[in-house]
């Protein structure tokens, strides 16, 4: 049987092994501890290297080193730990190194809580670390998708030489669902890395650097990065549409909140309301293409497990031509589908 009942966090590990990742560096933090524990147990069986680092800072810099040496490598953490990794992520982006970073989000700010949240959207998509850089950010909504997107993340990281973040949450990381492990479109083949630092045998010496004291040279790096980001924006936007064919009331939501919204769409449809859902799968690049042709939509309700972050990108994507409303929960609380339907009705989503 190719189906396995997996925790979200374990699915990340299974996918990494499938994608030929053999290096993991991390530091424990709830609710993602199953990820380092998975690698500690499984890597010795496949010749991989697991290190429990002394801190998230050390872990991300081990990732930097292993990526510079040409390896497929990943780390994972949860919100406060991801903040600590931000310095390293900025360096990795500047050095154009490929790696995968999983953030199994918990509520913040500060130490926050350990219950699920989506409050790191800004951090993931708008920078987080210093400088003009971007990461590809995937937002899976099921354990199967965690598996598929993690595999894809390794490939895209190598292809574009860019850090890729899997942005999950405590709920998704902890829940178990069945996962189809075979029969996926495998995009795991290795990509040659002539730029890697491996010792200069048989070639000129090479250098990986993030310091440019001459402004024109730093501008050149930034121009190159921005060109790469434009290319990714054109090619990698991903989203799911649910009942969008005739929707005049559009929900927009990502990750686990989007699944609650799906139920809300079903409930609203039962009441005769033409509701639909757009679920961004890439948060960066934000799937603007999904909003390009919303001629029927009269209202948009954005649902997030935070105080309103992606809603800004939705407003930009529709150029404020359609009213965009927001419903959010913070602190680790989950939105309820019934409450979402109430909001739809309050905002004028009426049966046809």
């Amino acid at each position: 049987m190719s189906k396995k009942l997996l925790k979200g966090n374990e699915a990340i590990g299974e996918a990494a092994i499938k994608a030929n990742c053999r290096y993991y560096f991390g530091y424990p933090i709830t609710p993602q501890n199953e990820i380092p524990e998975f690698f500690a147990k499984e890597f010795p069986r496949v010749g991989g290297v697991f290190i429990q680092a002394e801190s998230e800072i050390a872990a991300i810099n081990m990732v930097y080193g292993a990526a510079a040496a040409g390896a497929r490598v990943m780390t994972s953490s949860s919100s406060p730990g991801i903040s600590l990794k931000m310095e390293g992520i900025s360096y990795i982006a500047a050095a154009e190194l490929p790696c995968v970073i999983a953030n199994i989000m918990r509520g913040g700010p500060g130490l926050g809580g350990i219950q699920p949240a989506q409050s790191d959207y800004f951090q993931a998509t708008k920078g987080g670390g210093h400088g003009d850089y971007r990461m590809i950010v995937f937002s899976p909504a099921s354990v199967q998708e965690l598996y598929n997107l993690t595999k894809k993340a390794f490939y895209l990281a190598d292809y574009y030489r860019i850090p890729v973040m899997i942005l999950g949450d405590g709920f998704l990381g902890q829940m178990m669902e069945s996962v189809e492990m075979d029969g996926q479109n495998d995009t795991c083949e290795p990509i040659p890395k002539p730029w890697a630092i491996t010792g200069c045998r048989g070639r000129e010496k090479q250098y990986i650097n993030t310091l440019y004291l001459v402004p024109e040279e730093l501008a050149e790096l930034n121009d190159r990065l921005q060109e790469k980001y434009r290319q990714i924006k054109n090619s990698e936007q991903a989203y799911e549409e649910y009942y969008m064919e005739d929707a005049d009331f559009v929900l927009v939501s990502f990750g686990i909140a989007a699944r609650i919204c799906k139920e809300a769409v079903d409930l609203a449809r039962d009441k005769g309301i033409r509701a639909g859902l757009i679920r961004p799968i890439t948060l960066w690049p934000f799937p603007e293409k999904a909003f390009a042709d919303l001629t029927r939509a009269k209202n948009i309700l954005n649902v997030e497990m935070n105080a309103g972050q992606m809603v800004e990108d939705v407003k930009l994507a529709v150029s404020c031509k359609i009213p965009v409303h927001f419903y959010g929960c913070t602190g680790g609380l989950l939105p309820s589908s019934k409450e979402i339907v109430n909001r739809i009705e309050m905002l004028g989503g009426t049966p046809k």
Partner: protein
Amino acid sequence: MERSDMVISGFGGQGVLFVGFLLAYAGMLEGNYVCWIPSYGVEMRGGTAHCFVTIANKEVSSPIVDRPSVVMVFNNPSLEKFETAVTPGGHLFINSSLVDIEPKRSDLIVHRIPASDYANELGNSKVANIILLGALIQATEVVSIDNIYLALQEILPEKKKKMLPLNYEALKFGMSNLV
């Protein structure tokens, strides 16, 4: 069955998460969509542990379980916490060896089963959860005993395989002692 939402709740160490896992695994074996969600973190340290299990014949949209149709409890706090959530006409399974308070609602199908006492009769207090699981599948038919047994065979590590006959006995015992 379109979608069954269940809650299993008790103290850590009572096999609460394991029963939920077995249900989800058996559900998967039957070709259904399943979802298992544990309580986690500090809640687990000495407090109650619970899990939510959903088995559905179509994709599970929202995995949130706020109105379960089946609740199984192994201690007083669990009964107090989840009794109000059960849908009217839903099933409430109580390990009456450990729960000494009465449910307040009269619109539920209540199964009071002294599972820990039965487990001791079978010679191992740890199978109380499996006895209650037997009662649950007898009453709800949410999965078959064959698939629970198959799930056990697949899940139990080699060194615990010797526990299979006892678990099977406990399942059968629970099924035939449903009240």
